[in-house]
């Protein structure tokens, strides 16, 4: 459904992405792992045109675009098919939870207001915030804010949701509630591309795991392939560092 070919991106002299390929099918939950600075977040942002890639192609269903010089129309079309969940939530500060969720529906997609509100409420209910429709972001905890962020993405009913380290700005005790919500929507068959440091999520939920380092894909495969029998030295080193010594996986 989504195919990325040979994407390159530099910031000044730093080459962040050195030719990455990626392929996601409908219903996949693809998790990208890797040390910070490996280019995971940049890859995600380039797919949604929050950064302009230097070169590369994307095939999105029947839509084919060049990631460097896509037209405004194409960018708009891709953003209509995708949704993005940000590391620091980026909820609209001047809108309530329900307004945050319906903004894209009413203004971006021209869905009638009443329908949009119905969709929005359902999305907020799904993330367990049925009592917070009218709260402003400043009145919500970090975990609640991120759940609104997820509801905002889910409500758009996109072909794929891009998650950019959705739990890394949260206090440890709030990570669980967000991961639970993510697991639930994954179980409903939502296509997801997730950049995260949460190994348990990768292990339990991912249908496919990609390990990135230094701007390239080092290794990819099922979570069993990556966690239990990694082939590449760099993957092993990374896992050894992030996982406790005596941690064993049962899949």
């Amino acid at each position: 459904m989504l195919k990325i070919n040979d994407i390159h991106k530099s910031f000044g002299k730093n080459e962040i992405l050195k030719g990455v390929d990626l392929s996601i099918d409908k219903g996949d939950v693809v998790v990208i792992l890797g040390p910070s600075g490996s280019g995971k977040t940049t890859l995600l942002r380039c797919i949604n045109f929050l950064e302009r890639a230097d070169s590369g192609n994307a095939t999105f269903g029947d839509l084919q675009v060049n990631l460097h010089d896509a037209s405004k129309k194409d960018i708009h079309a891709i953003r209509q098919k995708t949704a993005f969940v940000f590391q620091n939530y980026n909820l609209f500060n001047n809108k309530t939870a329900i307004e945050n969720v319906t903004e894209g529906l009413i203004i971006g997609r021209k869905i009638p207001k009443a329908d949009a509100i119905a969709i929005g409420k359902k999305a907020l209910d799904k993330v367990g915030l049925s009592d917070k429709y009218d709260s402003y972001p400043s009145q919500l905890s970090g975990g609640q804010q991120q759940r609104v962020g997820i509801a905002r993405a889910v409500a758009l009913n996109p072909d794929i949701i891009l998650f950019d380290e959705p739990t890394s700005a949260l206090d440890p005790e709030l990570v669980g509630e967000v991961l639970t919500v993510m697991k639930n929507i994954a179980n409903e068959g939502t296509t997801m591309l997730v950049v995260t440091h949460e190994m348990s999520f990768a292990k339990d939920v991912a249908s496919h795991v990609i390990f990135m380092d230094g701007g390239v894909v080092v290794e990819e495969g099922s979570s069993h392939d990556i966690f239990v029998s990694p082939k590449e030295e760099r993957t092993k080193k990374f896992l050894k560092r992030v996982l406790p010594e005596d941690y064993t996986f049962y899949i």
Partner: protein
Amino acid sequence: MRNMEKYFDISYIWNSLPVLLPFLKVTFMVAGLSIVFGTFFGLILAVMKLGKSKIAQKTANFYTTILRCTPSIVLLFLVYYGVPALADNFGLYLHDLNTAVFVVITFTLQFAAIMSEVIRSAYESIEKGQFEAAVSVGLSPFQAYRRIIFPQALVVGLPNFGNGLIALLQEGSLAYTIGLIDIVGKANLIIAANYNTHALEIFIALAIVYWVLSILIEKFFGKLEKVFSKGKQTINTN
């Protein structure tokens, strides 16, 4: 203290107020026009400062620095004498132009510089992520500015806009120096008619008028800020 009454008579303060107040109309008209034009040009300057063109940035910043360094009275006279002199070169005769026009030009120039900074800093206070989130849910860039960025920037900019208004009103008090009969001009006429006696009382009356106006503007913007600051937790700074 008996012989002080000869010099200071408090009744002059109350008696001059009804004569002075109607001339606030002139003060308001001049200030109002300067605000409208100044905000418009300030917006253009702010766009130049925030844009990608280095030349536009430099030009706008240079303009702001120059205006920040120029005393109002100097700018006022520079416009008053300079604009007609400049117009002469183009065969235009502007020496008989209404004084109010020169005052409006002066304070438009000044207010534009103030507003460009107010708008720039308000815009920059909004995180980039707000825009990114807006386009990621399918808003066009224009919709993102109008619905997400602008309402938030407005709240940030409002107090500074209010302060700018108060500053403009006060600097405007110098318009009498080129002969505008606003409230200060009228006060000077009253004093001249009294053969320069009881000037102090008239000046105190003037001070009261300006003081009350400034407090009203401040209160008004405080209220306005509360109305607009949806979603912002109020932090008590006192």
